[in-house]
């Protein structure tokens, strides 16, 4: 890895983001909310200015920016909120924004399924448990997190490694990437024989997420995987019923 100025551009948003998340994590002392919000928004803006693509298809890019910003903001608020109820609701918002990203990726069925499974089932059941378990407001263990400094620092180091590797492979600086230097990471391998079972490439990009193409892929190429997934669901259901505590009604 060469330490060029383009590489160094990633350090500023990473440090700003780490500062924002670290200062928002629950602790004893009062948290600097305004400072954290400013640094977080500044980090996202700097990252957008350095790495995200220039405006091409205006509407699609605008939708992508909106959904991505909402997803990242709500995820940050979810992991930093003191109240677990609000955290679960922020997670539901994150799920909705991620489903918007799925729609941009032409996966409408997947978006609907994710909304139903996550926002409709998982978040609601977790909310029920939180409301049953914590009727006396926010608890002590929600107001103070476990080693916020080192954990957030290490996670942002992980994020930095991921972004640096993306930059190394494909050049996430859209300004410096030209057609003469395509990224190895994002280009189709040349001269590699296609898998025998693989579907022919879909010509119409709108067709990728359609139920017909998806169902054909699921029940031809991935038939055994579908059967295995069904078995795993059955086993998990039986296990959950076996593990779940039995109490008279009205008690948790």
């Amino acid at each position: 890895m060469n330490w060029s100025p383009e590489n160094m551009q990633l350090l500023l948003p990473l440090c700003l983001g780490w500062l924002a998340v670290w200062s928002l994590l629950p602790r004893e002392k009062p948290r600097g909310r305004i400072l954290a919000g400013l640094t977080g928004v500044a980090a996202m803006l700097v990252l957008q200015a350095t790495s995200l693509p220039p405006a091409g298809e205006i509407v699609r890019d605008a939708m992508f920016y909106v959904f991505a910003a909402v997803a990242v903001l709500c995820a940050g608020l979810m992991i930093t909120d003191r109240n677990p109820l609000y955290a679960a609701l922020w997670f539901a918002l994150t799920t909705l924004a991620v489903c918007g990203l799925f729609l941009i990726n032409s996966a409408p069925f997947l978006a609907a399924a994710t909304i139903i499974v996550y926002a409709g089932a998982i978040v609601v059941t977790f909310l029920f448990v939180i409301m049953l378990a914590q009727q006396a407001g926010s608890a002590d263990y929600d107001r103070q997190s476990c080693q916020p400094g080192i954990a957030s620092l290490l996670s942002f180091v992980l994020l930095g490694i991921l972004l640096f590797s993306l930059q190394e492979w494909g050049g996430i600086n859209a300004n410096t990437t030209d057609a003469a230097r395509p990224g190895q990471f994002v280009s189709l391998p040349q001269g590699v024989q296609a898998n025998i079972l693989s579907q022919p490439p879909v010509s119409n990009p709108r067709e990728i997420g359609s139920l017909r193409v998806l169902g054909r892929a699921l029940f031809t190429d991935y038939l055994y995987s579908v059967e295995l997934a069904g078995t795993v669901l059955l086993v998990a259901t039986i296990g959950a019923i076996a593990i779940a505590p039995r109490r008279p009604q009205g008690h948790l």
Partner: protein
Amino acid sequence: MNATALESQLIIGAILFALGVIGFLTRRNLILIMLSAELMLHGVSVNLTAFGKYHGNPQGQVFTIFVLTIAACEAGLALSLILTLYQRRKSLDVFLWGNLSEDDLPILSGDSPRSAMQPMTDPNANFPHLTPAGRAPLSPPRKT
């Protein structure tokens, strides 16, 4: 959609994954730990669908469907486990279960002394004895 859009989606996936890691490591509420794991799965799903869109095949979405399935299984099992743990200690604090760790590891008890190990609410609770596995412990098991 061009390659730069793929890369920006990979960036979003990486950010979501890192935020999920932070939540998983720092939060002490059992339910929030599970929700942070789901957040990491969201980041992976964004990556998968972006690659599927880029390569023009449905494989990414098929993998995301499997991720969804496993997430549903994980949520159900985690919920029943969390309910069982809550019944034992009447709290969702993960630090109360620090004595399940290895013998030679320090018990995390938080930074404030008042959040240290609370006494069990039911002293007559009959805990199952796990079959010893791994190496023999250096010290006798901790009494909690």
